[in-house]
């Protein structure tokens, strides 16, 4: 028998989580993972914690150039918010289809920690942080420290992901690209987020690259990015510059794509981002 709870306060939710309940946001991953096939109930055991009625988890607030997103905010709600950055918006708009986006939550996409999770790529690029709460208190860590591998989180059994903290950094240009088999309901073969801010003299102030589905977790290498700061954008060779990320792009062969394709396209997308920025100087 499955026990289910649908609390309306965060305090109550934390109490239920403390008893080891499974957090359940929109269910768009869980109801598939635990499906019982026609005529049978989904295969859950223990306790389910429905988070969709917890007011604190449904809020989006913006203050001082930081957006705080409750973990149970749906993809559609985030898409409809006027201050959601374009890069994140573009990624969310290509997730699944309207029916899924109306239910799927940002917290769930993070919690599922798939290497191909689409919302993760822009979140990593923006240096998003997450708040993890329990009855004992709360801690805030960078998102990149929460996800350590394929479906692996440094989340304690009594902790609940409650907020995503997104700095609303403004860039000169951003670019998102999802490579998939079709326009909707396609799991990414790979995805790309790029952001660039130039100084007035055409040198790079900030360059960020994040890649999805080409490694166990999102690929972002601040050391490479820092090595390009101060360089003239015009002087970069796009292909050679992209090669700097080659060793960190470690995709696999699976039913969606091959490692070779993913790697080549990822490098092409990095080079293309730089080339396009150069063309529009």
């Amino acid at each position, binding site marked *: 028998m499955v026990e289910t709870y*649908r609390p309306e306060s965060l305090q109550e939710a934390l109490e239920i989580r403390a008893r080891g309940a499974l957090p359940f946001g929109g269910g*768009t991953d869980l*109801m598939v993972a635990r499906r019982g096939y026609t005529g049978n*109930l*989904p295969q859950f055991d223990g306790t*389910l914690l429905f988070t969709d009625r917890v007011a604190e988890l449904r809020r989006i607030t913006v203050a001082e150039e930081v957006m705080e997103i409750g973990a149970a905010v749906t993809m559609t709600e985030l898409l409809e918010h006027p201050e959601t950055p374009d890069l994140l918006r573009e990624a969310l708009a290509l997730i699944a289809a309207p029916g899924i986006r109306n239910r799927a939550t940002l917290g769930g996409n993070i919690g599922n920690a798939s290497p191909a999770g689409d919302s993760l790529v822009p979140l990593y690029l923006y240096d998003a942080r997450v708040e993890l709460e329990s009855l004992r208190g709360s801690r805030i860590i960078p998102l990149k420290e929460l996800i350590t591998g394929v479906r692996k989180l440094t989340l304690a059994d009594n902790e609940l992901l409650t907020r995503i903290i997104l700095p609303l950094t403004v860039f000169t240009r951003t670019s998102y690209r999802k490579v998939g088999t079709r*326009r909707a309901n396609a799991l990414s073969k790979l995805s790309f987020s790029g952001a660039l801010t130039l100084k007035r003299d055409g040198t790079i102030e900030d360059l960020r690259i994040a890649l999805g589905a080409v490694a166990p977790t999102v690929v972002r290498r601040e050391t490479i990015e820092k090595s390009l700061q101060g360089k003239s954008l015009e002087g970069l060779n796009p292909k050679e510059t992209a090669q700097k990320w080659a060793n960190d792009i470690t995709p696999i062969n699976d039913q969606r794509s091959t490692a070779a394709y993913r790697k080549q396209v990822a490098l092409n997308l990095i080079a293309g981002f730089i080339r396009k920025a150069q063309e529009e100087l």
Partner: protein
Amino acid sequence: MKINFTLNGKETSGDWPAEKRLLDVIREDLGLTGTKEGCGEGECGACSVLLDGKIVNSCLIPLGQAEGARVVTPEGLKENPRGKAILDAFAQAGAVQCGFCTPGMMMAAEALLSRNPKPDEQAVREAISGNLCRCTGYDKIVLAILLAAEKGDGLW
């Protein structure tokens, strides 16, 4: 668990496991078979219903999350003038072959037109992007929805 929700405008309640799929409750327990199961994993849209006015895949909704919600199925939609306009447009445009995707497509049409009464083709295609059709090639379905928007002037 006792669950209460509004189904096609009527207060409905019953004793069901909270994790039971809304799709199964609608079809098996309540006998409303207009909603179809095509894939059971949220990819085909045949199970589309409106939940508080939004299009969702009922194969992914546990009944516990439908507590207190307004649910509309194809049976409910076709009872009102907007549903009738959509039905007529689908028939007129020749947008129905086997008919299996059609209930879901109609729900998607209503979800779109209730937000955007005069959509362009791009908006229509985006609105049905979660609904798969194996027969028609989608073009006539798109035309049907544009036709419904045109002929149903004032309904949305």
